[in-house]
């Protein structure tokens, strides 16, 4: 990778690191794991940079790799959890609500979680999420709807009947 390529990669790195980190964290629920996943994604991006430079959106490639890595980790964990203590997690910051968010996400299926992360954190539209995940838009809508309902229930978020506004219940 040449000098200008390095500069471009640095810009790409700075531009993507936070978004990828946020996605990885909500996918895994573990800050340490998330950091590892982003690091691994960026290492792969660096190796492939001469090719990626020509892409319209190298960020999409990085996001795809990150999610694949997270899914692989999730599958491994599903097996490992039978033996390990699942309640010990590394979190970057803790308050009741933050942990409730993580717990609610942990209760979703991996597809639901990915859909939520892509839509709410990566900022993709439903159509883009569907394209990214290779499923029909209706399926994405269904996943998002169920996921949101479960998260809202876990966080005790209720919709006010009057103006459709949302007010958190006491006890969050």
């Amino acid at each position, binding site marked *: 990778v040449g000098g200008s390529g390095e500069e471009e990669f640095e810009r790409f790195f700075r531009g993507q690191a936070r978004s990828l980190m946020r996605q990885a964290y909500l996918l895994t629920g573990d800050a340490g794991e998330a950091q590892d996943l982003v690091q691994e994604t960026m*290492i792969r991006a660096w190796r492939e940079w001469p090719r990626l430079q020509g892409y319209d959106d190298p960020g999409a490639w990085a996001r795809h790799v990150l999610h694949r890595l997270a899914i692989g980790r999730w599958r491994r964990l599903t097996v490992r959890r039978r033996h390990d203590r699942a309640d010990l997690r*590394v979190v970057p910051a803790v308050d*009741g609500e933050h942990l409730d968010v993580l717990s609610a996400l942990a209760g979703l299926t991996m597809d639901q979680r990915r859909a939520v992360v892509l839509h709410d954190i990566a900022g993709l539209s439903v159509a883009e999420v569907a394209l990214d995940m290779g499923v029909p838009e209706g399926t994405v809508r269904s996943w998002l709807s169920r996921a949101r309902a479960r998260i809202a229930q876990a966080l005790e978020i209720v919709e006010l009947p009057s103006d459709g506004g949302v007010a958190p219940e006491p006890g969050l």
Partner: protein
Amino acid sequence: VTDDLHGSGLNEEVSRRLQAAAALVDPLADELGISALRETSPARRRLRAPRVALVAAVCLSLALAGTLVGLAGRSASPSKRIRPASPPPIRVDLAATPKGWFPVDYGDLQLSVPGDWLVVTSTRACPSESVITAMEHVAPVKCHRGFLVSNVPVLAVGGAHFLTSTRGYSERRLMVNGIEVVVESPPRSGETTVAVVPSLGVGFEWRSPKVTIVIRTVTWSPRAALLTRGAPARTPTSWRSTLLDGVELSVPGSWTRHTGSWVPNCDPTPFIFPVGPRILEELREDEKSGICGGPGVGEANSGLVPFAAGPSGVVAVEGPTAATLVDKVDTPLTCRRSRSLQVCIDPGSGSTLLMSVSQDGVVLMAIELTLRANGVVDREIYDSIRPAGTPAPGAVEPKEQGQLYLSALAEMQRLVRQARRAERGARALARRPVAGDRLRR
């Protein structure tokens, strides 16, 4: 269901909560270093491969030599103390303190707070023990039903006060930097969240969401590292000894010793710091405690004193004042003997270590050591406290060092020859046809 599911207020609120939770890892993203990625370039890795092998071989040899030197030293002279080969299990994680933050110690626990916060110790608020309070503005603190309450503090750290059960709270167990933290969340919003580190007997509570990131900074304190059991730390050869009324200790060679009266109408006191007199003068103007000793001595008794005011260093108080200062070391945390001296540590919980040094039951002096960084320097100073005229721990004569080096080198060469013989044997075995092959032929 609307097009992008952002139409409903509920969906927006869920989205907002998710984004807020995700944003908490932004500092971790900023920690990711691009330079580390560049090192993993395949071309560079290929170039580096032989160097890595060479470096690994040299490191292995040095580690082997170090172990052999240790073994040789122990067998040659039982009085020589060698640093243990394996690191102590308790290590202060310096990386746990983000840039621009500063660490706050309470007993064996350390956490860090933003650099612009004011952190105070107070024994007036809760007389049975000191409490550390972090706040954005100065405000009085008081005790109420076993909990520290105040109108401004955003975080309070303490011992027994925070270990009482919290009825109705939901409990979660987390592992932060290798330390188990139990977080107790209140049943209603607006109440205090409590976190307890049961293994260290320390707890902290907070109300402000600004504090939530603080929990990620939990690690061992330098005090915990200093008090870890193990062989006495070897005094580095670059250090120099300083004599204090029958007691000797070693400090880094760059540190300078001063003697003066820190507080008006007090006896002159020796103090040894890695800072110049000008800085000390400035600190003197800020010193309001009015208690004899050096900067920081008596800090815990002064009510509301900025926690991080004291610089690194050693303050030694000799004579009768020493006895009054260490009166409270009646129930010391731990004591150790160094020949005829007994060194006892005050059970106080701050980032300074108050010690009494006594001989035949008579207090010779009080020594205050400011704990900083990973506690390694502090441990080496602490272990070097000894009767005047006796050698520092692990001091090795230059001549003896040379002999140990040569014997280690000879042992290393012997092991290399042995490894080569084994490799030749393995190659010969690999070339020899096995019985099955011969039968097939």
